[in-house]
């Protein structure tokens, strides 16, 4: 299995640079607000729970569909679900590493954060996983990167625009992906994270099932760009 991961890391290396670039860009406002623990904490949470999920979701849209050799994929002896999961793992690890780096930098700038580092890290990772898995699931389910991209972009935008409205509806709050940002002290936070994990698992399942219809994957509209 390790060669598969090596291959995936090699394939994603350009995207990983983009990931690191976002972290570098984000460090700039962090340095500017380092004296305010509230603002710095807010920036860390926004990066982990809002920016990184969008970035990784856009990368995971093309998990299979952006692979120019997907005809080979579907005929290879390796089961495609292993491939999908390995690519997810690589992306999530890259996201986790980047997030850890940014949080570490934040901690170095300001030791006192208004939300615990554990909660920021775990909350962000779960949201990243949810959006990434949903992105891939939508793209494969709709057999198109653009279609999946539009749906995930719409979900992400709605969650960001209506974050104040969601607070007033406890039912919606359970599914809200940016809960660490909006209500980190809510007693519903663990349940919310659990629901997001469940959504991620279901999305991975959908991704895998969608690849069983090879005709849709091979002939789908997709970018022929390097992943």
């Amino acid at each position, binding site marked *: 299995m390790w060669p598969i991961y090596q291959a995936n890391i090699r394939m994603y290396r350009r995207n990983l640079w983009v990931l690191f670039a976002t972290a570098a860009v984000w460090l700039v406002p962090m340095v500017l607000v380092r004296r305010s623990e509230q603002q710095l904490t807010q920036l860390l949470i926004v990066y982990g729970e809002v*920016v990184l999920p969008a970035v990784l979701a856009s990368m995971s849209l093309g998990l299979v569909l952006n692979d120019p050799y997907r005809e080979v994929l579907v005929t290879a002896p390796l089961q495609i679900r292993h491939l999908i999961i390995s690519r997810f793992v690589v992306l999530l690890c890259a996201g986790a590493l980047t997030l850890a780096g940014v949080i570490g930098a934040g901690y170095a700038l300001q030791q006192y954060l208004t939300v615990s580092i554990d909660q920021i890290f775990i909350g962000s990772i779960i949201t990243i996983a949810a959006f990434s898995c949903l992105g891939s699931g939508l793209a494969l389910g709709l057999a198109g990167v653009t279609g999946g991209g539009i749906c995930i972009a719409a979900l992400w935008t709605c969650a960001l625009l209506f974050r104040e409205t969601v607070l007033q509806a406890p039912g919606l709050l359970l599914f809200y992906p940016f809960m660490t940002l909006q209500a980190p002290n809510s007693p519903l936070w663990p349940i919310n994270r659990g629901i997001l994990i469940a959504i991620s698992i279901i999305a991975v399942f959908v991704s895998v099932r969608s690849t069983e219809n090879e005709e849709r994957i091979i002939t789908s509209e997709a970018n022929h760009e390097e992943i």
Partner: protein
Amino acid sequence: MKTSSFKTLFITEFRLLIRKTSFWLYPTLMLLMSVLVVSTEASSRSASAFDVTVSLISNLAAFQVLPLAWIAVSTFAKNSEISRDWLWTSPTDSHFIVLSQLSGLFLAVTLSSITALLAAAISSVAYGIIEAQQILTFLTIPASIILFIGCFELLVITSISLVFRKSVTVFIVIALLYTLIISGVILPYTTLTNPINYTLSGLRFDSVATIGAERPLIRSLLWLYMSCGITLVILAICLVSWRDLRHGWHRRHTRHIYLPLVVALASSTAAAFVYRGAVAQQTVPPPVTDQIDTWHVLQADHQGLIDNGALAVDSRLTVRNASASPRDSIVLRLNPGLDVTAVLVDDQPAQALRDGETVRIVQTDWRIDPNGQAVVRLSYRGLPLLLREDYSRANSRIREEPIMFARPVRTYIDATTVLLQRDGDWRAWPQTSAPYSARSQQIELDIRGYRIALGSGSRADNNQQPTRYLWQNSIPQLLLVAGDYTLHQSEQGDVYLPRMGSPRDYERALSALRMRQRLAGWLDEAPTAPYQAVMLPYAQQVALGGVLVGVPANARVAFSAVQDDTYAEAQWATGMLGVEMVREVLQERVAWTVQPLHTQGQPRSLSIACTYNAAGEETCVREVYGGNTPQAPYGRVVEPALPSPLLHAWSVVLGRQLLRDELGRATLIEEQRFWQALASPQAAGTNAELDARLMLHKRGLLPQNLPDQVSDSRRIAALVVPLEQRCREQGIPGLMKLLHEAGQQHPAGGTPFTEIGFRQLMQRL
């Protein structure tokens, strides 16, 4: 040949786009979003068509960015693929190829936006916000703004796509920028100087004046957006052309693009200047504080003409220096949009220098000693400005609302709408904390060119044009309103409503008429004619004048200081109406102690966030923020949030009695308990006091945005409790007897009725 290639490519791109299943997700999502926005607005039931319009514009403009990014990126990123090599074999230059693709995209996006707005219009009809025949009128404003903004967003996304070319990279760049703006990391304040944020929130349309005061800003802003967007795209096309030499495209073709680039840059620069000019007009100038409560007006005569949006006034004021020091100038408050054309002091020519929101009248070798008098004649004309500080709010993305320096809106004139009140800055008057009243005064106003004009003065035109209103001697209240109203006749009286107002306007107008009639009965007033209710443009408070009852046109926006929409809005809005109506009437009957004008400003918003625990119990937390306000960066001379605690206490008690049948005994008893908790020294600092204060805020019974909420609310409660007790013991006649006595001892314009005087009166009677 180039034109036919352009047309072919444009149509081809459009057809390729609409053949993709993924593209159809975009208009579907836009349609769902617009319906969701309308249903959310409709759930508050006080939203007017223009509230829905603003919400649609801000939500659709913000929502469509990222989905649009995917559509645009998938179009332009593919240009470098093998499957698109046919593009480069065409005789058309690369910039025409990109332009034709962009045009195809723009057409598809425009059709999607129009579909979404049509769905919003149909939903609005279904929810009763507008009528079916108003669909076209309803669509005009949001369609024109959304299309411009959508075009701008598309142009920016196209520029980024052309530069970066990789779908994922482009999406990441756009998502990053979007997050930085939405979360308030960059451009934290939604103000006029940050035009990006201006469209996302802060637009304010009025149901009577429609676009109204926003018109000059909107025009220049949309021009700025389009110019900048086109400039960015042309720059990106230049870059693409330079990078794509491998496709056989030669550099000499760049000359064709330089001219459009120069024109676009010039247009952007001009638009930026025009927009900056519009913003500068809307920024409150530095305050003038050296002559506040300095002059008493002994005699005032004003003659004015309002003609199709322009105002011309000739004023004659006899003023007395009421300060302890001599003065070598006279500062008069006058709207910044009005220019003084002639000025005389004691029949000698003088100079009028514009100084912020005032004019400073100076004369060579002239001074006036304490108690000395002068006669000032001024002529001024122009279009009064309504500053955004007064009718909108500066929002922050980072939960820190700036201090506000808003004044009540008492002056508004445009081509279709007029609002003039006695204490407005449409007429020259010294800066004073007291009402604009003089021992002897006359105001004559002619109005022409408006569909419906209503004034509280006597008609003096023999039913000819222009309509002339006259107010003479003591002028308790002055109200002149004009606009495109529809007349509704009811048992309570005539009601003038805007064509596309809130569904609740009519109910509130009828409530206002009932309250006015009841109050007139208590005070033994005999109006000369039946009362008429009219919805006021931009005003946030009730205004009375003769038989006219002016009601703020939209409760939710009018009382925009309160942000929490979970209030029982009907009850709150009507409650506020009652309190304000009593206050307006009592102000003219008794002289109240008035807090002076000040420059500290007050917290812009009272934010009450309520959350519910698992058992459904509500916990509310009130937060007040402060800081500099971007639209009044130098501060401003403003009226106090609580001019008179005693007047407010009277207004609350009588205001609730006006609504006692509607509210019910249980509600009134509950409120009495709250006031008692607030007034009780034993409850000070406890949860009971906090809950009482929050609940009274929720019902509109405590003034909004008090600088010292705790002590001011306790002070009011200490006055409300004995008044309520008197009402329980002796009923309304008991309160009227007190009021009558207070009016006798402290008539309007005389010595003020203080809290000590009030307690003495309570003991005596």
